[in-house]
């Protein structure tokens, strides 16, 4: 059961950062609480000081301008799923968000909480890595932007310093002739395997490909070897089959309670083939009759 704790309600990010500094490891940021409170209830961690950042104004803004989609860390999954800005600028993200958890978790849980908790079975993390998004961290010492991929350093571990608050996720909007596809496989509460692909075409060839895999290992990461074998090639089923096979071999996969390593590698292969095909199709919607 939950043990006793004190709750702090800062009005500004700097104040939250100061509280984190003052209370050290005894303090944790409390956003939606859908991860934090569970961990505390289960007795896996105890924080005598919770810093509720929901009292800080402006941290849940969602806007797109100058080729950049900016999502405040406090935006809930539900808010992102329903945001006209996201639906317009990054529909794949809106669809992804709609599939997360259940309505209760989506309307309470925040994207910042999802990313900072760094539970590896995360949907948005995988997509953000494929999109080369950056995460903005603020403390009393200043502000810095980190690429999503280097933010996740391991199982439940991030590059965030203890006194830093994640304030914003910055997504460069994909250029023309680029398509994104996101594939997940889920049988438990959280996804078992997640794959995101971005494909940019030039004429009949792949000018750039990005493939990110998540949930199967300690952290989401890009598969650069696969990306290299796709670049400059003509997209077809054989190419994607070979790429998917390589993705299965290259992905960092760990042993866990449920699915075995070889099955998870197999899932990476299936999802990669599907994601690459869909992303390619979306990269030239007119030619395939889509829109």
């Amino acid at each position, binding site marked *: *059961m939950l043990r*006793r704790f004190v709750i702090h309600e800062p009005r500004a990010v700097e104040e939250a950062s100061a509280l984190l500094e003052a209370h050290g490891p005894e303090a944790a940021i409390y956003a939606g609480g859908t991860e934090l409170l569970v961990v505390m209830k289960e007795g896996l961690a105890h924080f005598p000081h919770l810093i509720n950042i929901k009292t800080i104004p402006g941290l849940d803004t969602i806007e797109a301008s100058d080729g950049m989609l900016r999502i405040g860390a406090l935006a809930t999954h539900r808010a992102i799923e329903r945001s006209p800005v996201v639906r317009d600028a990054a529909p794949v993200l809106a669809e992804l968000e709609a599939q997360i958890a259940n309505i209760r978790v989506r309307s309470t849980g925040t994207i910042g909480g999802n990313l900072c908790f760094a539970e590896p079975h995360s949907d948005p993390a995988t997509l953000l890595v494929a999109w080369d998004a950056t995460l903005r961290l603020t403390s009393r010492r200043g502000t810095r932007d980190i690429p999503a991929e280097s933010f996740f350093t391991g199982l439940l571990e991030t590059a965030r310093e203890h006194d830093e608050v994640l304030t914003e996720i910055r997504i460069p909007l994909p250029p023309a002739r680029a398509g994104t596809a996101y594939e997940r*496989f889920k049988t*438990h*509460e959280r996804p078992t395997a997640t794959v995101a692909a971005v494909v940019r075409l030039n004429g009949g060839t792949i000018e750039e490909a990005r493939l990110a895999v998540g949930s199967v290992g300690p952290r989401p990461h890009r598969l650069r070897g696969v990306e290299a074998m796709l670049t400059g090639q003509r997209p077809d089923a054989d190419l994607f089959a070979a790429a998917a096979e390589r993705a299965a071999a290259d992905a960092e996969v760990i042993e866990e*309670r449920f699915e*075995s390593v070889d*099955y998870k590698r197999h899932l990476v292969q299936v999802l990669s083939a599907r994601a690459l095909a869909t992303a390619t199709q979306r990269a030239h919607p007119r030619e395939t009759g889509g829109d």
Partner: protein
Amino acid sequence: MSTLSHRPASTEPMGAAQGNGAQGLVGLSAPRVDARAKATGEAKYAGDLQIPGLAYGKVLRSPYAHARIVRIDASRAQALPGVIAVLTGDDVLDINPYYGHAIKDRPLIAIDRVRFVGEPVAAVAAEDPQTAAEALELIEVEYEELPAAITLDAALAEDAPRLHVTELLKPGLFHGLGELKPQPGNICYHHAFARGDVEEAFAKADIVVEGEYHFPAVYQYSMEPHTTIAQWGDGEITVWSSCQHPFLVRAEIADLFGLPVANVRIVVPYLGGGFGSKSYTKLEPLTVALARKARRPVRIANTVDEAMVTTRRHGMKAWMRTAASADGRLLAREVRCWFDTGAYADNGPRVVATGADAAPGPYRWEAVKVDSWGVYTNTSPAGSYRAFGATHLQWIGEAQVDEIARRCGLDALQIRERNLLRPGEAVRPGGKPLDADLIGDIQKVAAALDWGTPKPANVGRGLSVGLLAAGAHPVSTAFARLEADGTATLYVSSTEVGQGVRTVFSQILATELALPVERVRVQGGDTLVTPYDRSTGASRSTTLAGLAVQRAGQELRAKLLEIAARVFGLPEEAIELRDGAVWHEGESISYPDLIRAHFGMVGGELIGRGEVRPEKGTGSYAEGPVFWEVCIGGAEVEVDPDTGKVTVRKAVSVADVGKAINPRLVKAQEMGGWLQGLGNALFEEMIYDEQTGQILNATLFDYHVPTIADLPASFVSTIVENEDGPGPYGAKGVGEGALAGATAAIVTALYDAGVRVTELPATPERVWRWLRERDSAAAGGAQSARE
């Protein structure tokens, strides 16, 4: 997101019609009498109750699967401000602290030894739950680990560590299974029967199908975990508990603490689901012992992970072979199954016996041989869960029937039409013959599945049918008061566990008394007030307690007629009951006026009693069951060959209920049972670490229970009313059959889609592996054919 298309078999009139004649409200989907209270939060559950001086209990549980307790030092916990009492094994040595309705093998708190991870070692009562939890951390326990047997195989091994000295165990108060003999090693119970010459039948068979199968331990998950309040005082014990069987709990508590049963009172508020997890005795002995030590009323409320180690469904290993002739006649079946009952028997022996009953399946055999064992392991105890026994074995037997059908060129419906038992045929040696039209039922399932029509690739359709020994011991009583204002109060001890029993009983009594449902009030179970009922489980309440209610109503009816005959000065035959009044032709006297005429004042009341007991014999297990519950279902599934993921496209249920007193409640039971069956077939499994005995998925994050998102795209439910049940108006129980039927139908549908299921749940990874094995076997076969 799936959509739900609910196709009713017939149009159901809704709402409480005026009672007219004896069948008045029977067959109407009256709204649930508890719907408003539950929707508004007014309904009280054990966790909502407050009584003066209530203290809060928390339980310290064993971290080891098997260990000797060397020393417990609770002094620091005891000294914590706000702590009232700390209970350990030493505090119960003045009584015989062993209980268990089947076998008295379980101490109410660990004594010298722990036998599973999660076994209560100490309990704290404090002024608030927070303090109680903090006190647990201050209790020091020194353990000496012992070798543990976590799995069935480990427990059955020659040199396995023994959990109990089985020779010294005493039978419980209600095992109901004839003579219990001490068993060797870790065997808790053995149930066997045989008929015909099995060896000969297998020797002459053209087709033999044989296999080994595994069924996992499953958590019953009810929204409300077990919650109990106990109060000890002056030679009396009062318990408020989320329990299904208050009278059996009362007897066990009285026996444990050496009191007459009349001095023990069990009060049952609403339950937030049970599904068998709250059958028999669970938290009550520990809570009473803690209250006794604390000299204060105490509440213990389980969390989900505690509920998971309180009781579960038995994991099982089975070996089965089935013999048939080339033209598809089923000849013989032989079954050996081992049920993992965990560290204590709980309801294990009954599960073992019911599993044995279900093992042959409802077919006409020349020979059958079944051996079923319960086995102690160092894991949390296993007991009842909806459709136990049938759910364990039906999927196996039905998969073998389908394999035989394939080999002799019949389809799954044809082989069943040829071999299913007909009404009146013997199901097992001794006991009740078949009391249902299984062929008619299975044809309805097939029709709902559009049997025989073309289907897309990777889609399979499956049927399944089985039987479950239902009803438990047929003893129930009820009484009803018809008050001076013409309203009725019903006293009956069935637990409202969500199934709608209070609604159905209101309908029955209202029908007998020709009253609108709203004028009947049903009292919850309270052993001081409501009369004896054996239990709420085994699909028995409408059938047996409902019959007692009907009889109570009939006695009242007879009294009304008798009084009316006197007042009218007419023979009883000239009088009828209608709309809350007695009538002779156009003339009527309302019940209040009639009661006033009887007593000569505004007051008084009429009382009716109903009793149900075995009609012949003793009602024993061997002579039973009360009725055979039909476990039937159909499924259409789609398999993703890339990932092994299974989607149920269509769920079919047929509720062979004799008479549907409330069709909407019947369908709710079918749908709920089906969804649980889907969970048992595809998702649910308690995973124990084979070394430490820890449950690796003891949270609802890691243990996936089906949710609304897992509902099949379409659910078709048909109600069959042959009025062939022993209950009121020809009704027989419903509620369990859909679960076993659904689990097995999903397995047979997977079989049809090319997947040979040998272990549940059929997770995507397992399905993927089975498909790979099949494909490599096919490739190997093609290879050797070419050579």
